[in-house]
């Protein structure tokens, strides 16, 4: 029980650090914040990005790149903590969600919706 708690605390700290780092992405013509704000990209509850309904494919490139990066990072965390990628991704989504401005597209359990204010 105690071990699990320690592991969980360490994991949370790692996730917070990751968020603080802000997934330092390479310079794109379209950055993530803008893409999300313009409704071209949305957050999925597996911790990855996806194109929301009605959006064009303008953000496809940045979404793929960031997802690759996120997946690589999640994999590391998963390996270190003996968790699956999906679990790490879900936990990440919870953290990301809290930081998202209202009106950002989010997909929870397969359903797209905009984050309430």
């Amino acid at each position: 029980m105690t071990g699990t708690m320690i592991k969980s605390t360490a994991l949370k700290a790692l996730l917070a650090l990751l968020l603080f780092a802000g997934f330092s992405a390479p310079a794109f013509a379209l950055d993530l914040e803008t893409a999300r704000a313009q409704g071209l990209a949305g957050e999925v509850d597996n911790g990855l990005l996806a194109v929301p309904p009605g959006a064009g494919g303008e953000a496809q490139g940045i979404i793929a790149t960031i997802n690759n990066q996120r997946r690589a990072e999640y994999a590391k965390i998963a390996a270190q903590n003996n968790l699956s990628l999906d679990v790490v991704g879900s936990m990440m989504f919870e953290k990301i969600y809290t930081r998202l401005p209202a009106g950002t597209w989010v997909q929870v359990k397969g359903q797209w919706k905009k984050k309430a204010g």
Partner: protein
Amino acid sequence: MKWTHRILVALLLAVILLPLAAWLAFPWYLQLLVDRILAGKPFHVEISGSGIPGPAGFGFRNLTASFTVPPDQCSSKPATYKLSLVNGRISWNIGALGTLFFSDRLQTAFTLRADSLCIQPEPGSFMFEDRDPRIDMQIAIARRRGAPMEFQPYRVSYAIRNASVTREKLRLAGIDYRVSLSSAGKWQQPSDTLHIRKLYSDGNLAPVGDFRALFGSKRDPLKPCTLILSNCSINLFEWNGAAERIEYDLRKQETSFTLMLAEIPLNELPWFKPSEKIPLKGLGRVSGSLPIEFRDSTVLIRNALVAGEAGAGILYPVKNSNRWFSLDIGPKPGSAEILKNLNATITLNSRNKNLSGLAVRDFSAELFEGKLQSSPFMFDPVKNEVMLTMSMEDIRILDRLNYHGETRGSFKGGLSGTVPLAFGKKGLTFGQVSLASALTFSDIALRDIPGLTGESRLKTPLASGTLNGTLPLEYRNSTIKVQSGIISGSKSSGIFFYDKENRQWLSFGLASNTGSRALFSNINASLGLDAAGDKSQHYSLKLLSAETLGGTILAAPMVFSVNDKDIPVTLKLNNINALDRIKLHGDFKGSLSGSVSGTLPLVMGKQGFMIRKARLRSSGGGTITVAPPKLKRSATERIFGVPDQEADYSFKSPDILFTRHYDGKIAMDFSLGELKRKTGSGEILLTAPKGILAMWQNRKYPDLVTLSNFHAGFFDGTIAISSVEYDMAKNKAETVLHLNNIPLQKLLDLQGTKKIYATGTVKGSIPVKISGTVIEIMDGIMSAESDGQIIYATTPEERALANQGLRTTYEALSNFLYIQLASSISMAPDGKSILTIRLKGNNPDFQGGRPVELNLNVEQNLLDLMRSLSISSNLERVITEKTLQKNK
């Protein structure tokens, strides 16, 4: 010459010539002679064409005699009869005649023979005819002086052989009777057997004949006007009837007697004699009595009856099988006779004193406890036709009907209605028949239904149980109708399928559920006969519908002929809960549920049945568990060893297009909502699988099942098989699996690894060979369909422990963006497999993102891998089992 001499010579010549002249002139004076002899007698004889008599007789061309029987106490009118003989001859005894010269009286014998003898009353209502008759007469000839010779007959005998009597269209033939009259017997005919062999009606042999009776002219002094026939017998429809005595009152012209119908084996009656044309067979004996009264040209039948002995019956064998129907006609409690109280009034109609027909009225009887009546009808001997309408009221013939198949089935029900019928030259024909019966049947074995006999259990399903039901039937206007019929299956009735080892593996339950739910209810049907109205027998199925298993079944209207090579029947099924009725046995278990709807076009042919593209679909589904027999295993094996071979197959929403040919070839286009295979080691889900299954295509290889055009969703991609032949006997198959659009991650998950993550999809072709439980993969290839990412996530500890080369690989694969992925896979029958993977791409975080090419070779035992993956689940199961045992 002297005068005396001349006179003497003349006298001598006269003595010689006069008899000669008399002899030569006999034909001219014969009639005068006869007239003289018969002067004062009540009959008159005319002879013509007589010849010159010889020493022993003379011939004649025609002899007609008419004689009148004067009125007496029994008859108020005189009766005149005319007798004619053609080409006859009267002969006598010449020796006896010679004595007449020496005596005044002699007795001699005359014999009268002719080509034919004919007797007719005047006017001619009938005609007696005898070919080649012979009448012998003993006559006394007396000669008195001064008086003509007297002829006194004192004995006449006439043996009638094979004579006939004709009246209109009716002819009695083969009549034998010996007439023997004598003065000593006071000219009374002594009792002798009258035998009439046959009766013809308009040239056709009637089913009445062989009449025998003792008959003589001597009357009972107390009944002087009664004609008595004794020891009478007659053959009626090959049935012997007998009456000890028939008394006919000549004055009143009436008689009354009872014809006792002898006990006769049923199979000797014409309707039940086994033959090609008549499938009926009689069993046991029947007897009866026919009380007859005859008065004023009217025959009255009063309370006639027919009864069968115990065990008597009629059998109707079903063609080409050892099944049959039986109709029990033996005595039953409260019903000793099958036919009783038969009454009828038959009047012999005459027109211009000629028989013009038989009029039958007031015909009624009790038949099988019901009432049978007939409209008045006429038998016209000229037309030789009978037309009548039979009315039936609750004739319980069905109560005596049984079906002898796998079990003894029985029926119940009364038959009511009217049957107009005609019997004549065309045989028996029916008019507008109207019949109704609430037919109830019970204990009819399902195994007696064609196709369910189970005679060849390996290839055909076997049925068990019996059917019961009620079918309210009505036949009117050439249409048979069933209204609101019910059919139920007995407890545990069903259809069972067997595998090659003769083990039951699937059953379809047909038992009616508890309560009043029938297997089929509200059965309504309407079948028209002779719909097309031509000579060939046509049927028109106007309606066939029923409620069954919560749904409905409906047949499309159709017209067909019994001569049709193929008879198509299309059934529409709607929401029939058939899947609930399917049970699996042996190595198979599971439960299915859901309703079936669709169209089932059946074609009934002489060689069996076929199904033309039946379309059946269901919203339901179920789970089938295939569990081969478990072998005894050690505790270690139970925990770490071979996992149970048990696999659950669950499916949803089946939809099939089914075709069966007469020769048994089956082709089935199928599609399912999903098919899931779940074993201890994992789960494989095929979404929307569809394909074509073909069975029994080749008679030489009945165990070969072909699956073609198979396609299913598999791990978000697709799996397809263009064709595979599976030998059920050898458990062998060889094919190529075509994979498309399969997410790489899903394949990695299948491997059980938790360290590799990947995006992108792959396609591939994997040749697979199955032999028994052994699977072999030969040179399977797979390649990525697009770019993707592979992440091999390692912990710092793992990296630290790895050698330099491996560490570099770890680093490269920590975020590898591939642009090319190609793989080949082979697996030997023992599970040993070689997997080669070639990757081209880069890792943006590794060595500045330079292009990297990786070649990986993995050698492992795939079967061992699958086993190891199942260890955890086995452990869980064993622990649970132990816990349960402890808690007991």
